[in-house]
C-alpha cells in the first residue's frame, strides 16, 4: 500500500483523469481507517458487500490490480503489484 500511495501522489500531480480505488475485502472499517490515518494515506479505500466485487472481477489472489480504461473496458490486470506496467499504461 505504501508503494501504491507513492504512485498515487505522483499521479495526482500529473493527471486529473485517473482514479485509484483500493478495494478491500474482509476488514473492518475501523481497521482500514486506523491504517490510513497512521500512514497518512490519501488513497481512496472502498469496501464491498462480502466478496461481491472481488467475485465480479474474478479475483482470487491478493493483491490483484485492474486498470479500467476511460471507455469502461478492462485495459489490464495482474495478480501482484506490477508498478512498471501500471506506469506504462498511465504514461508516467
Amino acid at each position, binding site marked *: 500500500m505504501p508503494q501504491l500511495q507513492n504512485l498515487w501522489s505522483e499521479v495526482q500531480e500529473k493527471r486529473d483523469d485517473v*482514479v485509484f480505488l483500493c478495494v478491500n475485502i474482509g476488514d473492518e472499517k475501523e*481497521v482500514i481507517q486506523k491504517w490510513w490515518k497512521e500512514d497518512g494515506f490519501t488513497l481512496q*479505500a472502498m*469496501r464491498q458487500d462480502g466478496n461481491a466485487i472481488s467475485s465480479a472481477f474474478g479475483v482470487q489472489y491478493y493483491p490483484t490490480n485492474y486498470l479500467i480504461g476511460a471507455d469502461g473496458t478492462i485495459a489490464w490486470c495482474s495478480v*501482484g503489484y*506490477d508498478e*512498471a506496467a501500471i506506469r*506504462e*499504461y498511465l504514461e508516467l
Partner: protein
Amino acid sequence: MFLTTALAFATVIFQEPQAQDQGPAKLENPVHAAFKKSLTTYREAAALHMVGSLEIHVNPAAFGSEEAELMKIGTLTSTVKWAKPHYGSLGVKGTIDFMGFEQKIDVESMGLKDGVYILDHDAKIIDGPHPVEDVSDPAIDLEPFRSFMMGKTEVPEGLTQLDTKEGMSGWSWTTIEGQVECWMKGGIPVSMKIEMKDGDTVMQRMQFSFAKVDLLKEVEAETYLGKLPEGYESFTEEMVESEAGDINDGLLSIGSEAPNVTFTDMNDQEVNLESLEGKTVLMNFWFYH
C-alpha cells in the same frame, strides 16, 4: 491467519518473481512465468516429499508488548505433497501447534498419506509415513537453525542468502537456501528462513526445511495410496501439469466491459463504477488481515 502465513511463506519457496518489462495490455503474470521457466524444479518439488518443520516466531513488540525477544508461537509439522504454481503455494497437510491449540491443515490434498517421511541423502523416501503426532525425529538437529532463527548466529554454514525482497506493507523477505548436513542425517537439500521486517524491526521469522524427490521417477505409485486414476501406475507429466492451474484463471479478459459494481466508501456512501466512466480507474484489491 497462520494458514495464510504458511501459504504466503510457501510462496517464496518456489517463486522467483523477476521484475519484467510488461506491456500494459498483457495478461501475463511474472510469478507464473517464472514458475513455468523453472518447471523442472517445480516438478521435483511438486512431486515431493518432504519432511517439513516450520517454526513461526513473532516479535511481541509488534503487539504492543515490551518484550523484545522473538517468541516462538507455533510449529508446523507437515507433509508437503504437491505444489501448485498458484503463487508457488504448496499443498500442505499437517498440524499446526499454535499457542497450545492444535490445528489440522490440509490444503488441496492429492492423496499422499498424512505423516512424516524420512528421506535419504538423495531425498528418497526411505521410511514413513509416520503419524505426525508420533514423530519426534532424533535425527533432526534443528539447533543451528533455532539459533539462527533467534538471531543469535549468522546464516548457518552451508546456506547461502539468495536475496531479500520487499514485500507488502514495507515488510521484506529474506530467502536463503543450501544444504546443511547437521540438520538432518543424510542432509536435506534445502532449508530456508523468511524474515519479515517492518523498517528495522523484525516482525516475524519463519523457518522451513524441505527436500525434493522427483515423484515421476523416484517414488512408487503405491506410496500414494492407490489414488491414482484407474489404469495408471504412476503420475504422468500431464497429471502434474493439469494440477498446475493458472494464477490468472478467472480474471476478466482485456477489452471486456467492466461490470458495474457498487463500492461503499469510507463515509458509507455508495459509488458506482459506471459513474467514473471517462476516467481511468485503477482498482487495487487488497486486505489487511
